[in-house]
């Protein structure tokens, strides 16, 4: 009994006070910015980028696995900021582009989902399907509900049954062997429902996009409501993305 009390006292209060505005360690590679247009740098970085995320003066957050090789080699062109707000409601806006007119780059943004804002403002239930996920995104999604991040405080929880869910949150590139179970889980969720893609693998196939063993055909017929980049997606990115979608970020 005294052992437990002692441990409890030292445990203290662990919840992050405000996950939407939390400060994150400066070494965290979050939202990237393109610092300048430089054909040579983009060309060179494009040649070694492991997932082909780097294009013509652009960087695709949906493909990026945040290995950091581009910013380590070309710090004058690529910068990753300690900003976890990376989610987007449109695939296209995950591609950070350099704008020659303003000499700045674009950033992803989440548009509030009006239907969800009306229906799920106090309670939003997620059903996770891991389909070829490496267990990193799964652990981070799990951590979003833990004592530190505690997204349950917002009424957002991961539920066991698809029947209880408002959304399916996919992790992993969709392995062929898992595709059927993924589709069936989606079909088992009652309407209205939305699809959320968590992590580079779910969004673009990530490191596995060229594998014969994955199958994204069905996924490509779907219209996801939210994309959360990362490899894995950070719990703060997940929470911020979900809350933005629900229209609860001021």
């Amino acid at each position, binding site marked *: 009994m005294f*052992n*437990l009390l*002692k*441990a*409890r006292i*030292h*445990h203290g209060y*662990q919840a992050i006070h405000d996950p939407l505005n939390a400060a994150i*360690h400066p*070494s*965290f*590679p979050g939202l990237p910015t393109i610092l300048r247009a430089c054909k040579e740098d983009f060309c060179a970085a494009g040649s*070694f980028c*492991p*997932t082909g995320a780097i294009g013509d003066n652009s960087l695709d957050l949906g493909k990026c*696995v*945040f*290995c*950091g090789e581009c910013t*380590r080699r070309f710090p004058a062109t690529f910068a*990753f900021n300690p900003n976890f707000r990376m989610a987007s409601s449109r695939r296209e806006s995950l591609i950070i582009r350099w704008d020659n007119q303003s000499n700045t780059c674009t950033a992803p943004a989440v548009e509030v989902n009006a239907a969800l804002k009306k229906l799920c403002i106090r309670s939003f239930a997620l059903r*996770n*399907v*891991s*389909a*070829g*996920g*490496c*267990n*990193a*995104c*799964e*652990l*981070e*999604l*799990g*951590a979003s509900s*833990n*004592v*530190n991040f505690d997204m349950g405080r917002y009424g957002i929880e*991961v539920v*066991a*049954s698809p029947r209880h869910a408002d959304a399916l949150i996919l992790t*992993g*590139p969709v*392995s*062929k*062997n*898992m595709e059927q*179970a993924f589709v069936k*889980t989606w079909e088992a969720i009652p309407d209205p429902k939305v699809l959320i893609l968590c992590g580079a693998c779910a969004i673009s196939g*990530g*490191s*596995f996009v060229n*594998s*014969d*063993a*994955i199958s994204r055909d069905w996924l490509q017929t779907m219209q996801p409501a939210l994309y959360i980049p990362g*490899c*894995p997606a950070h719990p703060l990115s997940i929470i911020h993305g979900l809350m933005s979608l629900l229209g609860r970020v001021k």
Partner: protein
Amino acid sequence: MKEKAQIVNPFLYVLPDLMELTDFLNGIRNLCLAGYSPLCFFGTARQELLCGMALAGKEPILLRCLFPQDMQYQSLSMEFPAFHLFERELWEEFGVTPLGHPWLKPVRFPIGGQQSMEQYPFFSSESSALHEVGVGPVHAGVIEPGHFRFICHGERIEHLEIQLGYQHRGIMNLLSQGDIRQKMPLAECIAGDTAIGHGLAYCSAIETLCNVSVPTALQTVRLIALELERIAMHLADLSALAGDIAYLSGQNFFAALRTTIINSSLAICGSRFGKRWLKPGGINYGLSKEQNSLLRSTLEEAGRQIERCTRAMFADAGVLNRFDSTGSVSKKAALELNFSGVTAKASGLAIDARCDFPLSAYTEFSPLCLDSGDVFARASIRAKEIEQSLDMIAHMLSTLPPVSAKDSVSLPPPMPDKLCIAITEGWRGRIVHVVKTDSESGTEFYRVIDPSLHNWFALALAVRNEGISDFPLCNKSFDLSYCGTDL
């Protein structure tokens, strides 16, 4: 204290001469009888069988022969059960049939394999007293997919069959395509919760094939990363074990402590999982004097709280009642079935790659071991290993000069026609990577053997005669990887 083995892991080979099939099989039998166990056993696109046999402290022995002409041979599994999964892989991938295999069925349903998932055969019983329970592939929690088929007598589990393969991503194929030196992000995804364990095996193998050696200080940083990963994941498991028995204080204490540990990794390399920290040739992020002392003080503080929490948990009658004698695995089974890591150590088998096949930066290491083989033993080993790893890190940090990532070495193309076996002790157990280069320094094949491949069978054994409601607890006490097995 075990003496440090006088061998240097990773191991570099040229392919041994082809043997006759009978000599090959007899060679394996003799090595098994001499105490060796299989590290790897697989077929290659050249229609050859390769087998690596290991004994602690000795350089692994490679054996090689052509596929049998009639594509079949007498199975080794009845005599040496450690081969049962390797033989299933071989049959599934190449159609080589091990005659007399006790239960020949697919492992991971690779594309172009012998069977598709719908045809999966399950062991079943006609008895009207028994019923079957199917769970998965989609589980109730946030975890990876797999299917568990129970045969139960009332609440009691008679038999469990584990069907995996849902996570198969073709990662061994991807690893063998293109420049082998640029596969780090992929190696970190073999099992994302073991980014360092697999990443270090990959780095060590590639460095050996490229014939470079990494400065000791950088290697020490990599071992620190490996131990941090072990501490973090053992904490995650203690948290989940506590959660499974509704000991909610423990669930939250250990979850918060895990956050502290993985945030220390983030502060160094930017990733809570240690992704992008290591690279072939060294590391991407060094450790300054300030980072060193900050890490030491964070870990000291965390160590004190971990001690308080484990003391509270392991003194709780309710916890002990649920852990004690639940899900036991015998030492005999652990030895025969090639289990490793916590699974083996909790069943009295003192094996650990950190002393059996040490990477050069290890000094001395002695594995912790318990005999009872139950959930209690596996939970206790995790708690004790956390303490042990904290001590190891403190010791390494105390003598470590400031380390700069700039001291990493660049890699020339790998040597042609060489084979390398790299072994690391991940938090789940023994990780083996086998890489072979072709005559033009391309990659002929890349095999990965995650400890989970063997250890899943321990779960099937552990739940026999347990109540089905104890399955989650037993499962968590092993915490095995789905994607590490499915690859």
